[in-house]
């Protein structure tokens, strides 16, 4: 069997080669050989795969899934912070993609269009998750004594640091978190983010600016409390 290849026709995301992002672009294992070959064929563009899918072939769509499923999953995961929900979002995104393939505008980049579907679903899921959590846990949490009051003044451990970051991300407004994830974790530029979130470039920049500020404020405060 051919080993997993890296996605050979990089979108702007992949061209950057931000450290650690290769694993988000590798093809999944266990693909049928013809799907593997199609997905790994740099000469076959995403648009061509869309065209062939619309002609009723299944392998080209499987190849599109193979090219984008990892990135879609990880973006959803970083927005949601939960693997199970991210999986659902990713699956639903491909279902929606499949149903709306005939609306694909060949003049535009495929990944922008597809990531917009992913982000819409992920942000929706995040909001639902939060409102569910808010109604079920917040009252309870408010009644619990703050464990950290008894904690020693020792420097916080790495795990705690990381936990703090996720707590801060969980507090961050969905629209800031979306930009932060796309830019600071996935390395997209604001020009790429804007069409994905259907906002202007200026708004994308402002949200990034504000998102970083808010993130840092919460993070500083969290560290001070620890």
């Amino acid at each position: 069997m051919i080993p997993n290849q890296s996605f050979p026709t990089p979108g702007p995301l992949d061209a950057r080669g931000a450290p650690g992002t290769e694993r988000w672009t590798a093809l999944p294992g266990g693909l049928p050989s013809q799907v593997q070959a199609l997905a790994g064929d740099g000469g076959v563009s995403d648009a061509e795969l869309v065209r062939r899918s619309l002609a009723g072939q299944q392998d080209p769509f499987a190849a599109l899934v193979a090219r984008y499923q990892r990135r879609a999953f990880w973006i959803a995961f970083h927005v949601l912070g939960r693997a199970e929900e991210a999986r659902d979002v990713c699956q639903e995104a491909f279902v929606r993609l499949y149903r709306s393939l005939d609306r694909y505008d060949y003049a535009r980049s495929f990944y922008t269009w597809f990531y917009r579907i992913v982000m819409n679903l992920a942000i929706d899921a995040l909001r639902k998750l939060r409102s569910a959590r808010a109604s079920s846990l917040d009252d309870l949490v408010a009644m619990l004594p703050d464990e950290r009051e008894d904690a020693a003044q020792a420097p916080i451990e790495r795990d705690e640091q990381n936990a703090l970051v996720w707590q801060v991300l969980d507090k961050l407004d969905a629209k800031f978190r979306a930009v932060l994830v796309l830019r600071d974790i996935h390395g997209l530029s604001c020009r790429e983010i804007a069409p994905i979130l259907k906002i202007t470039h200026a708004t994308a920049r402002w949200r990034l600016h504000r998102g970083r500020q808010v993130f840092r404020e919460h993070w500083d405060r969290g560290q001070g409390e620890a």
Partner: protein
Amino acid sequence: MQPVDCAYVRPLLPMLAAEDPDGEAAGTCAAQVRAHLRECVGCRAEAGGFLRAGRALRDAVAARDAAVPDDALQQDLHAAIMARVAEIEWQDGPGHEAVTSAYGPGVLGFARWRRELPWRHVVALGAAAMLLAAIGFWAFGFWLGHGGERDSIWSRQPLQATSTGPLRAVPYAGPRFELLPVGLPIDDQGSAESGVGPGMMGRGRLRTPIDEQLPPPR
């Protein structure tokens, strides 16, 4: 030009004190800002805070990512997605909203047909249908009732015949219609002259069980 001082630099720090892969911060005279940061301890500390926060974010994400069994998950996810897509394929084919409707395949077929039309075409079709309906309605009214008050279908005397039901009229032109017994002059051939409209539009032949009981010709 605004001097590059603390007041100028601080608001820029969230954008500057982070990796800038495509030089988006370049437009904010980054060189002068960097020169200020070399000299100003306060701004440097502030920038350092953003850098540390950004690093903490990436570290925390990487740590949690590592805990996800990615390869197995992706393989499984791929199979799950393709299984779902195969279901849709069976229902409706690619590029179509799958309509799961209690109304059955007719509605599904309509939804599919409608989906295949760009919305502008739908609007144009709707407008054309309304226009046609309006013209048809007017023509029908013209055919039935043209000639003013005297010949209006509403103003005529009732038909002097007994009928168990409405009379079926088969006009020479135009759609078939039913005459309620409102009194059209009917000749001995069983033809009704409605006295409306030009040409054959106003003539219809009655085919009803009451042919035998037609009133004597006038």
